[in-house]
């Protein structure tokens, strides 16, 4: 995964609360291998009519070039399906700005280079206001955790460890392998002090 420090793109407003992961990608598409691409499934049932055609009035449909999604509280609540993040990434989204995110979604996002940028209520209202007329240019900086839209410079919140991970494009498995001695030692000790924590032999 490639790291990134700043992103310049277009922000689009999706003024809906609690966009859960079932909406981000309906379950019926989840047997698809990742290599096939998930972008077309993003928000499938919200974006498309019963026949599968894109609804012209849905915000994202008029702005396929948008790479930053501005939405409301509870984004990514629900299921742990990382496919929800794949759908966003494959559709070209690099950052989502919202007042709150589902915990598992946020962690999945960071593991795939997608920024879950949390903003307070006032900042959120300002950004929503700036996007009332339609999509607008935005610049996102992980270094100082800021968003720039025209003359506006606004802060967002992100765990420092996550900011670093996004910037470096770190993969946790590589990092963890450096701790192999600690892990092996821990497992040995746990096996001695709590042997019951291993599955019992079947009778």
């Amino acid at each position, binding site marked *: 995964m490639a790291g990134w420090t700043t992103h310049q793109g277009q922000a689009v407003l999706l*003024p*809906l*609360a*609690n966009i*859960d992961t*079932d*909406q981000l990608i*309906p*379950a*019926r598409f*989840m*047997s698809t*291998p*990742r290599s096939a691409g998930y972008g077309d499934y993003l928000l499938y*049932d*919200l974006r498309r009519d*019963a026949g599968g055609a894109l609804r012209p009035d849905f915000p994202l449909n008029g702005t396929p070039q948008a790479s930053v999604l501005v939405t409301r*509280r*509870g984004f990514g*609540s*629900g*299921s*742990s*399906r*990382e*496919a929800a*993040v794949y759908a966003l990434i494959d559709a070209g989204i690099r950052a989502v700005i919202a007042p*709150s*995110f*589902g*915990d*598992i979604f946020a*962690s*999945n996002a960071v*593991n*795939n280079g997608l920024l879950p940028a949390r903003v307070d209520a006032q900042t959120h209202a300002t950004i929503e206001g700036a996007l009332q007329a339609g999509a607008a240019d935005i610049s996102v900086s992980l270094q100082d955790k800021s968003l720039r839209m025209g003359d506006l410079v606004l802060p967002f919140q992100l*765990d*420092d*460890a996550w900011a*670093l991970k996004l910037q470096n494009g770190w993969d*946790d*498995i590589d990092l*963890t*392998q450096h*701790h192999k001695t*600690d*892990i092996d030692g*821990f*497992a040995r000790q*746990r096996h001695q002090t*709590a*042997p*019951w*924590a*291993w*599955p*019992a032999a*079947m*009778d």
Partner: protein
Amino acid sequence: MTARTLLDKLWDAHEILRRADGMSLLWVDRHLVHEGSHHGFAKLAARGLPLAAPELTFAVVDHYAPTKNRDAIADPAIARMIDTLRQNAAQHGVRLYDLFDPHQGIVHVVGPEQGITLPGLLINCGDSHTSTHGAFGALAFGIGATEVAHVLATQTIWQRKPKAMRITVDGSLPLGVTAKDIALAWISKLGTDGAQGHAVEYTGSAIRALSMEGRMTLCNLSIEGGARFGMIAPDDVTADYVQGRPLAPKGTDWDAARADWATLHSDRDARFDRELTLDAADIAPTVTWGTSPEQALPITATIPNPDDLDPAKAKAAAEALDYMGLRPGTPIEGTAVDQVFIGSCTNGRIEDLRAAAAVLRGRRAKVPGLISPGSAQIKAQAEAEGLDRVFTDAGLDWAAAGCSMCVGMNGDLVAEGKRCASSTNRNFRGRQGRGARTHLMSPAMVAAAAVTGCLTDLRKLSGGMG
């Protein structure tokens, strides 16, 4: 020594190291995988890494498990998902609870049933309802595919310690009120993001009085209030449930485990970051009216008018009512349903089936419905008790075990625009099928809706109070 919460104790027991930035590397005692874990296995294969601890990894066919005609799976995509899990389990030497295994079932039902789940363990699974296992006093949380790959490769997980929250429910639950209603009550109070960033410990006399089944239902639904973790300190009820399970400790290991488990409770002076207290007597049978679990009301209430709600929630409420085809200001009771579903990791256990059967015994359902037990073992037990006959005599379908109509991946779907009274965990738009309208409630309340054909206060039906 400073007083510690149950969360503190479980965290300390699994923390291999903590980085300067506060991220902990935790030891994973049990990793549960299912068909949906294919992304995780693919990442492992892409790196050419072996599975770190096959003996601590257990695989279950559940999300895509057909509930009928398992011999000939018609949909090739479903067959492929199940075959991929079989191949991954075989390649890595993982115990698989396959479709025809007498212990197959939903991963969060099978784990406890087989003694894979124990107090004091850290349990991960690529499924958000992994919080279920916290009912045993375990540190159990759902993870995404990248994290699944990480656990497969290292048997560890990185995690920042959540804040500690305590929900205390004291008093006696009124008749007809269940763990499901406790969960919907607190989630409707705090919202679906109400406990984000927190691990919830449930305590109080009403929680102590719950069976393990009830405790699992409550912890299962923690994630619907935003909490990745739910937990309840283990006690004799827990030990009685665990003892004698196939993979539970035996002999001296059992004695050592009991001694360790006795320490798994929040110390008297332990500090919590947040507290919520509910009086059990105030909780009524609860149903959802919208498209989020927070949009829930007592069955005696009227459907809210968005204009009367918190302005921040009004727009979402109006959209939800539109999607659900409901009119503000009318009583929620009496809303006609098209079908019912009983099952899922939330409410597909034997106690749930007994509660539903108590309502349905000797009655006919006015609408069609599907009942999918949480596991093959529960199915066998229900049949030994004659519950299957109660359901089929009522005109409902009795099917095999799996996630089924809770998530619809196996093809058990609610049709567009149809209204389903469901014992499941999510009333999200499209969760049970595109355009499906889901009302969440307890299994007995689902049974009551089946009998009358509409959302019904089960306290008005004889037998419903059992």
